[in-house]
């Protein structure tokens, strides 16, 4: 009899990897969920999540029907933020229209608008706004006040000049927006959406994968072999890292093509970040499955992890807007760091020197999660 030789780690790892690839590519549903679904969702969300405010439906109430009031309304509506949806006869009628959702804003001129302006008494214009979406409301009211303050300034200057006085010097800030000059939402949001979809699909597949093996009894057959637990877990994850990289490459391709997302930095760096990110998400899935008795529990566990992780990542709500006690929690959130890496590389052309912290944090979180998963897994065997 020969004393049993410890099987080679490389052979064991390759066997698990191959088996996992075989099972995954044979399962059409998993492949769809992993590759096609994130692609479709990125496209859909990319179009849907648009924080630019334009074409706000607006009604005009103009009892004066004078040349100046009509000209004011025309020029205000011409800049594209507001879009005329018709006229109403009174402020009450306009307000009712907003209540009914027919319009989001109303511009109400006074009966003596032109006379008031020409007499120099000052003219008032009432703006009614639907405050349901605070961002939209702010942008709309900003557009209206900017228009009227510029108008007022112009009138004042004309009046001073007419009376022979020199108008005061104008102060006008000229902002130059770096990296996203058009302030388009998609280049900012699409990397975030990709990070979010990636955490969801990879956490669920890895959590369910191990739970399924437990449920089917195949795990027991694996556990009587002398395979090292850490190799089993790493080998099970590895194919999904490859698939995850593929998905990221596809998403970036689609993002560049459909949403004009720039690629200013190194894709190699982005892929390194992706691998570290997947280590955390797949590791979280494994950890979830080690505390689950079956697939159902693993599924619930997947929700318990991914939903708070997405909500507390800064993708949905700015981290600065969170209560102070909640903010430190986002430091443990891999999504936050990965979104920073993605945006940094793609939008700002950031390099290793700028992103080493983000990469290091992901590595630490990933290794910690994997260690916890392996320990839990080992303990459960005893």
């Amino acid at each position, binding site marked *: *009899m020969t*004393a*049993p*030789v*410890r*099987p*080679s780690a490389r*052979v*064991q790892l*390759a*066997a*698990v990897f*191959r*088996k996992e690839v*075989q*099972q995954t590519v*044979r*399962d059409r549903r998993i492949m769809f969920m992993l590759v096609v679904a994130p692609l479709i969702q990125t496209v859909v969300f990319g179009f849907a999540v648009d924080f630019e405010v334009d074409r706000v439906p607006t009604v005009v109430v103009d009892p004066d029907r004078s040349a100046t009031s009509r000209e004011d309304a025309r020029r205000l509506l011409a800049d594209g933020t507001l879009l005329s949806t018709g006229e109403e006869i009174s402020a009450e009628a306009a307000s009712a229209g907003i209540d009914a959702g027919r319009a989001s804003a109303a511009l109400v001129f006074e009966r003596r608008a032109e006379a008031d302006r020409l007499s120099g008494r000052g003219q008032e214009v009432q703006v009614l706004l639907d405050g349901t979406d605070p961002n939209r409301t702010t942008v709309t009211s900003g557009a209206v006040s900017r228009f009227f303050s510029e108008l007022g300034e112009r009138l004042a200057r004309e009046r001073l000049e007419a009376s022979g006085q020199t108008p005061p010097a104008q102060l006008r800030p000229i902002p130059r927006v770096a990296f996203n000059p058009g302030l388009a939402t998609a280049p900012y949001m699409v990397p975030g959406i990709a990070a979010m979809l990636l955490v969801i699909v990879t956490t669920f597949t890895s959590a369910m994968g191990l739970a399924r093996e437990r449920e*089917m*009894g*195949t795990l*027991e*057959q*694996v*556990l*009587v*072999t*002398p*395979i090292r637990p850490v190799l089993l877990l790493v080998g099970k994850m590895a194919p999904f890292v490859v698939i995850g990289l593929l998905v990221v490459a596809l998403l970036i391709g689609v993002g560049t093509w459909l949403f004009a997302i720039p690629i200013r930095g190194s894709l190699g760096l982005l892929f390194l970040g992706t691998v570290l990110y997947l280590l955390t998400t797949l590791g979280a899935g494994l950890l979830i499955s080690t505390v689950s008795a079956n697939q159902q529990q693993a599924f619930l566990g997947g929700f318990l992890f991914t939903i708070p992780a997405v909500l507390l990542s800064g993708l949905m709500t700015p981290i600065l807007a969170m209560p102070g006690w909640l903010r430190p929690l986002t430091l443990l959130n891999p999504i936050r760091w990965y979104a920073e890496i993605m945006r940094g590389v793609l939008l700002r052309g950031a390099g290793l020197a700028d992103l080493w912290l983000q990469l290091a944090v992901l590595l630490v979180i990933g290794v910690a999660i994997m260690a916890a998963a392996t320990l839990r897994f080992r303990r459960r*065997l*005893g």
Partner: protein
Amino acid sequence: MSAPAPGAPVIEARQLTRRFGSFTAVDAVSFEVERGEIFGYLGANGAGKSTTIRMLNGLLAPTSGTARVAGHDVAADPDSVKASIGYMSQKFSLYLDLPVMENLLFFGGAYGLFGKALRVRAGELLELTGLAGQDAAITGSLPGGMRQRLALAGAILHRPEVVFLDEPTAGVDPVARRAFWRLIRQLSSGGTTVFVTTHYLDEAEYCRRIGLMVDGRLVALDSPAGLKRTWVPDRVLVARGQGLAGAAAALAGRDGVRSVQPFGAGLHLRVDPARLDEAGVGRILSAAGAREVVVDRAEPSLEDVFLAVVGREARGEAVT
């Protein structure tokens, strides 16, 4: 890591006990299994057979007691034990969604086999188990008998010293069962020790020794013949002839007659050999009107043993 001396037992269980909460599934079980032996482990549902196997192959930690398998202590050196054993669990547990060959390649890899050697070995086992040509078949599409043989192939890829087979023939048709047992005997004659549980008492006859489990306790352990001698001291007789049905009543209540049962066209009876023999039974039946009476001695079956053991245990339970 020391190899056991030749002749030393390959499996040694010492006072193995496993409790689940307050329930004792396996209660202080001790036994030894010798090299190359086919060791049968019998017991009713829930007797603790699978739990014993799971403690021997390192899947389950015993609550108390120790086990050595293939010369290694299961608690102290589980990896060496795992490398030396094969295991077929009660529930089929290869990957149903993978082709036959992929299952063998995966488990072979887990045992450290690779490359050409692994493929050759896998092909050899498919041949041995009558699955040649099924390499690409999806495992889940195989009929039950083939699945069981594939599971056996997966368990012996790495030429283990000991294989644990937990009800390997449950739910398999009689022809497939026979084929499976041919494989088991082949393994054993090649020097592999086989530890097998079963519900089929006819199969247990193939075992060199049998352990009988009742409610977590090992209540009997011997060769099939030894068990029969110990547990069925009565002589089992089979009477054939004409008009036996009418004459059977004459036997009931006679001195030395333990039981009489119609069996096909004949009678099955158990007698105390000290008081009544074949000739005596023949005389009684003939006197009662039966003709052409022939009485033969029959071997008691393991079923008789099993009923006797369980019966005594049940009475024991009732008394205490």
